[in-house]
């Protein structure tokens, strides 16, 4: 499950009103989510949760579900 909090952070960075996230959603499916906005999303998620990701983990991210799992693990 993608939490409402994570979804809100992502939508905020991408300036989207809404978007349906499923566990299989990848960045390439979401309007505006490219390699540069990815960096902004990661920072925003880290700030929102007060956590820090490892570079290796960020580089390997493929789906939103994996991002959620990283957040859950860090929390």
């Amino acid at each position, binding site marked *: 499950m993608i939490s409402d909090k994570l979804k809100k952070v992502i939508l905020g960075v991408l300036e989207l009103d809404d978007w349906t996230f499923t566990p299989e959603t990848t960045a390439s499916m979401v309007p505006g989510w490219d*390699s540069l906005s990815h960096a902004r999303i990661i920072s925003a998620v880290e700030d929102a949760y007060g956590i820090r990701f490892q*570079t290796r983990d960020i580089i390997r991210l493929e789906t939103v579900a994996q991002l959620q799992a990283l957040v859950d693990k860090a929390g």
Partner: protein
Amino acid sequence: MANREFLIDPRGLVWDHLSARAVRQPSHEAIVHVAAGEVPYRWHWRPLMDAASSAGRWLASQGVKRGEVCALLIRHHRDFYPLYLGACSIGALPAVLAYPNVRLHPEKFRQGLEGMAARSGLDHILTERDLAATVEPLVRGTRSTIRRVHYPLEATAGTFGDGGHLAPSVAEGSDGACLLQHSSGTTGLQKPVALSHHAVLQHIQRYAGAIQLHAEDRIISWLPLYHDMGLIAGFYLPLLCGVPLVQLSPMEWVASPAMLPQAISSEKGTLCWLPNFAYNFMAERIREEDLAGVRLDTLRLLVNCSEPVRAESHERLYARFAPYGLRRSALGACYAMAETTFAVTQTVPGQEARQLRVERAALANGRVVPSRSGDPSAMRLCVSSGVPLPGCSLRILAEDLHEAPSGRVGDIAVSSESLFTGYRNYPEKTAEVLVDGWYQTGDCGFLHEGECYVVGRKKDLIIVAGNKLAPDDIESAVSAVAGVIAGRVVAFGAEDTQRGTEMLCVVLESGAEAEADRRALRLQVVQAAMAIDVTLSRVYVAPPRWMMKTSSGKLARSSNAQRALAELAWK
């Protein structure tokens, strides 16, 4: 002045220069391959060139012949380098292509590659199995030039290192082509430029002199090698001059920008080339804790190139990294393009790129008037890209194609001893831009006290984060979206001060009136652009018959862009 060590005989061949280097300094570092979370892999000269010789023999055994073009579509991998050089060793022409981003629709990628293959005359594709399903059908196409697709990394795992002896000279004239590079951009813009051994060697010697390259230098780069800045400044320059190259992955750097200052610090980097957006990106995105122990004191020259140079971006980077040892005098710049091999101008090493305050209103009218106004909104701070390299000349042309008077903005035309002889298989495009030995760059600028200031573009080109985008490609993709009135779309770039680059915008006409319908349309348009691997920042929806046309009946890009920014909401 160039160190004597870097005096290169331009009559030679690239492979012979590299072979001689491997004999002269066999155990010196050639390339340090950096991958996140791994110990850097260090290629020393002799093992690298032996592996390249071995790769060359493998390519020959697979049917690759002298003069044939080998396109490399391979991700960041330590065996990429011997493979590229292996193609050189047998006199084939290597051409690095961008590995497709996951969001690029496979069919769009295949179409783009097919068009490029036909235009550029690609003979062989060297790639990874992951792309097999996309690339293999190209070989079967009746009009395809591609003879075969090879998977060298999978086919020869670990065998490139068993070379043993250096491949002999391919023994041809130095006027022959040694590589193919493409002018950067979306498919509508990518044009193949074949460069001769002579052009490359001559240019490297000139450029090494301009940046005062010396034996203790170390180049740090994350730049992709399908781009001229990465290929020439970040690959041929270090290899031909025997200076170590520390190569990072572009995709890893963008995910973790701290990798660059960390590599400069740990590898004691002295030289680095970056597009302007990277200055803002690194100033904003790198956290304090990622810089623990990092020192940038060794960095003597950071070259801003490939996008218009913005004074504010230099200031942001300097403010962020001065506490870590970044020197203001290291902030240099350069003006370069694939058609002249690479650089046309370069600032003097050890001196910050000069800045000139000019009257904004006068500049808009093509006049360069130094500003004495205290009002920041009335002036524009222009950054110099330096002086022409020896062997390069630069002219500022008025509309009648005659040289513009001093103090005027005009179209920049360049001539260089390393100028290309024309786009490969593209005479009509060559004729448009190459006039009497002068390349018409499409950029606008002026000369002031002998230095070149690039301030805009004549072509409707958009440059986002170092990538050149053709508005036509974006307009066709958007035009195909249901709900958009076909042919009534204009794509344009708008200055993005925060990010130090341009943001990509479109204005389109649609009959959608309800706000919910317009919102849905905007999303579809953004997604249509994503399928060709471009990100739209703003989508302006206008009512039917809103667009202004030129006297020849075409949509007026610049006027419609200005009007959209002034009158329409994008959200």
